């Protein structure tokens, strides 16, 4: 793949930044996408291990609570988990749906919109959304911003963590560690176009096998994602461990971070400025003079002593 090398000019969006990103380079960088074909996943968790291995993460050993999910949720040191779901279809057949849950690398990332620290969250030209821990202040706004409940704040260093889509590997022309480790070809990686083609082929295959509602999960509400799923039941994404049906940046996050943010900032400046101009035009309320009658005034002062 061309143009996916490390290069600061390939940062196309940057958190808490009002200036435009570099504009000159364009056209050469192809957007990447990770395709997770849930229908081919056997739940071996090789990807989870590969993720920990490559990213040098060693989460605490947890406890078995009687289900296959382990750990039960994402943590600052577990950037992907397999979510196991038992689903009974219309015919009464039991289906074991296993979804690999990790950052979706949204085209319009809610975390990036919410982040107050300039450059702590960036999006590269190839579509990867990355946390730059160097600039992270640990406020947790990204947690509120994310429509998929992905970022986790570490108790060790109070910084936010999530899947990087192995941006370091991808920059050097390698596929993400999870893709490399998958024994069934359930996780594929390539250009966005190629992955959509592959996903369409897989969807057709599943439809041929009787999964009439098979489809691609690439939610438009966040501008599409750079991690897409092939689902047997694309009409019911929520059965796959609570995959949101129509994820979008919450209106509350928009109300907080949208146009109101510059408007309120300007209003505060204007308030101060109008105070100054009021003073300059109307003048102050001066200290009232004492009684003009000298005798009464001195009487008042006398009384006051």
């Amino acid at each position, binding site marked *: 793949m061309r143009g996916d090398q490390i290069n600061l000019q390939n940062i196309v969006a940057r958190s808490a930044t*009002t200036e435009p990103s570099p504009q000159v380079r364009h056209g050469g960088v192809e957007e990447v996408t990770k395709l997770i074909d849930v229908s081919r996943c056997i739940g071996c968790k090789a990807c989870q291990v590969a993720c920990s291995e490559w990213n040098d993460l060693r989460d605490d050993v947890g406890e078995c609570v009687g289900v296959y999910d382990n750990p039960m949720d994402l943590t600052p040191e577990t950037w992907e988990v397999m979510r196991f779901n038992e689903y009974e279809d219309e015919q009464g057949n039991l289906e074991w749906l296993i979804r690999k849950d990790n950052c979706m690398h949204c085209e319009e990332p809610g975390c990036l919109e919410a982040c107050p620290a300039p450059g702590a969250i960036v999006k590269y030209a190839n579509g990867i959304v990355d946390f730059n821990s160097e600039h992270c202040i640990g406020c947790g706004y990204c947690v509120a911003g994310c429509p998929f409940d992905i970022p986790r704040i570490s108790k060790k260093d*109070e910084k936010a963590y999530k899947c990087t889509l192995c941006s370091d590997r991808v920059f050097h022309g390698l596929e993400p560690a999870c893709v490399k480790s998958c024994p069934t070809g359930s996780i594929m990686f390539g250009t966005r176009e190629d992955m959509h083609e592959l996903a369409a082929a897989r969807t057709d295959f599943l439809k041929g096998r009787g999964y009439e509602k098979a489809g691609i999960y690439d939610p438009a509400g966040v501008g599409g994602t750079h991690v897409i799923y092939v689902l047997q039941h694309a009409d019911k994404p929520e059965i796959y461990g609570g995959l949101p049906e129509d994820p979008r940046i919450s209106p509350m996050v928009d109300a907080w971070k949208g146009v109101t943010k510059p408007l309120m*900032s300007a209003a505060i400046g204007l308030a101060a400025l109008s*105070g100054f101009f009021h003073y300059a035009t109307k003048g*102050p309320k001066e*200290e009232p003079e004492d*009684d003009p009658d000298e005798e009464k*005034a001195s009487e008042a002062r006398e009384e006051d002593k």
Partner: protein
Amino acid sequence: MSHSNRERGILRYRWWTRLNHWTVAISFVLLVLSGLALFHPFFWSLTGLFGGPIMTRAWHPFIGVFMTLFFVLLAIPLFKDSLIKRYDIQWLKQINDVLSNRDERLPPVGKNNAGQKLVYWIMLGCVPILLVTGIIIWRPYFAEGMPIWLLRFSVMVHAYTAFLAIITLVIHIYSGIWVKGSIRAMVQGRVSKAWAKHHHSLWYDEVMKERKQQPAAKDDSSARPQ
């Protein structure tokens, strides 16, 4: 040289009120500066005042809790003087006269005018909201256990409430600069009789009436620093 400054004047704010007011004021300004830094990138450089962005994020909530404690101490004794009266409504209706310094047209008011009372009530509304929403989003201590919808709601409400409080603060500070003698009242505690009569004549009448009734008490109150 018959200026009122030569008078010792009437005690308007006792030391307890002054102490609490300025503790709240200083904390509030620090909260505004650190809060704005995290609100819009335009204000990001304010993080430098607090020793960096992470320090800003970490200190802001502690200052907030500190301020709330002193705000409560400040607000309780001011409660009675802040109840809105009929003449306050009339005063507000004549806000144009207020702004144009046509003070002679204004109705006589008590110890606080309607503007001061509004500041009181707006802040009394804002501070608890800011405290509760702030605690909900406070990392690393409280936010971890909160549902995401609540984090979103709180962070939004916190921003809007802070906006209202900051605008109120700007007006409040400006009023102090605009109405000569009021900063001195809050710093040193006293105002001249002429000032009291001019700006708060009902309160002035009350004070004078009390002085006539208890001439001994008057000596007490002016002899000791308050």
